[in-house]
């Protein structure tokens, strides 16, 4: 399967990846120049945290080999896809119980801020084909896509 690999030592916290993620998932579509980053409708599926010592910790969904989120989903909205290895989220199935948020061991997930009716989850930008948006937009090449055993 493919995974977004991370070299946290290269990350300088510019958050281009987060902006790119918001841009990729915004509705209605538009250009990055009119993306309103303060609008709670536009949420990022990844987030970058400071380590308190000048470094940064990029938090991205791992599409885990044994995903705790999917192993706690009571609606079947979260599933690890056999062929791609990606952990996919089906908003229409989701019952908004947020057990997945509680069970992701890396604190990757969150409920959507505005309505609390869905989960904000990395989809690998599958709809938009090619590479995930965050990866394309990281100026430091701190994240990249790689085939891994999982």
């Amino acid at each position, binding site marked *: 399967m493919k*995974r*977004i*690999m*991370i*070299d*946290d030592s290269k990350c300088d916290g510019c958050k281009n990846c987060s902006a790119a993620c918001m841009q990729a998932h915004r509705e209605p579509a538009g250009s990055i120049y009119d993306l309103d980053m303060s609008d709670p409708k536009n949420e990022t599926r990844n*987030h970058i*945290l*400071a*380590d308190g010592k000048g470094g940064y*910790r990029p*938090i991205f969904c*791992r599409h*885990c*080999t044994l995903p*705790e989120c999917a*192993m*706690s*989903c*009571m*609606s*079947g909205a979260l599933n690890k896809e056999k062929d791609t290895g990606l952990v996919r989220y089906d908003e229409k*199935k989701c*019952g*908004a*119980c*947020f*057990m997945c*948020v*509680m*069970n*992701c*061991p*890396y*604190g*990757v*997930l*969150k*409920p959507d*801020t505005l*309505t*609390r*009716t869905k989960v904000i989850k990395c989809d690998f930008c599958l709809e938009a084909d090619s590479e995930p948006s965050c990866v394309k937009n990281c100026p430091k090449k701190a994240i990249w896509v*790689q085939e*891994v*055993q*999982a």
Partner: protein
Amino acid sequence: MRHVIIGVGAAGMTAARRIRELEPVAEIVMVSKDEHVHSRCMLHHYLSGHRDERTLNFVSEDFFVRNNITWLPSVAVQALVPERKNLILTNHQVICYDKLLIATGADSFMPPIGDFPTASNVFGLRNLSDAQAIGAYIRPQGKVVIVGSGLVGMDAAYALLERQMDVTVVEMAERILPLQLDEVAGQEYRKRFEQAGCKFLLGRKASETVTDGQNRVCQLVLDDGTTLNCNLVIVAAGVHPALGWGLGSGLEGERSISVNDCMETNLPDVYAAGDVTGLSGIWPNAMKQGRIAAENMCGFRMCYEDTYALKNTINFFGLVTLSLGKGQVQEGDQVVVSEDRHCYKRAIIRDHKLDSILLQGNIDYAGIYQYLIKKQIPLEQGQDIFKTSFADYYKVRLDGQYEYQL
């Protein structure tokens, strides 16, 4: 090899899927009282009218076909005959197994109060069939009394308020959701429920019933003499493992089926998983137990290790809460509270380790707390528990998977 699974709930379905992955050609037969595969945790969405039989399903519609599984719906197992390795069903069919998984879940507990056990308008809420039966009594301004303000009771209250029913909740404890929430967090929900028209009678027990000529409870009498008129009663006073059918088969266990770490019962080739084991009463653990049972049924030795079960999330009126641990303060504990307009947080720290945490309003990225509690990770001097995140334990493995660096 023929695997037979009783139950199409969280444990049974997870086990079936895993067995199919491990043994592409083995025969798999599933039996269930349930007519439809459905997630019990979403029954309130059915009561409120937001979901139907089809959208309560937590697997794909073609699950059984795609996985080549024979499913016998709407039929109950009546007896297990371990000497002959077979099951007898209520339709007198007999089915043999090489490996058997019992994943029959739990039944609602119906307390012996007045005519509760026999009246036609008193229900538990556990199965879709319960919700369907309750459905017939739903009408605007109809009076419903809900006994018990745990998760199931409040789920029912929430749904029936949406259907404009006149809802009264009777609760023994002095606050709602007493196991999951403290006074402050419970009060937040209580306010919202009351605004929506819900009435609460706290610190009260149901003690008697008055029944009309047609076997319906029309009044509920409480321990202080209060009487409540009602058209419908929902009892959400707990559950007990569903194993009545298995009595006399030689299965060990008193109130639940005893299993070892591999989910094996005392009988050869008979496994059990989910609520029927009494190990936990929550969905994620039932799934995990189902998976472990499947591994062992296919000959892989695997242990059920992630046994932590004191965890729940709640989402009513768009107010989300996460509750981990017993939430009970002992002598010597450090209790940390943080409150602002949007959020209430309380942590109990015991011997420099996180024991319980309650987050209400904002649970963003809060997945790590369970890990800290489960693994009993020592906290550092002065560590702000509410600012703690995975960044504090950050490590990326060579294959890109995260792990905790301690």
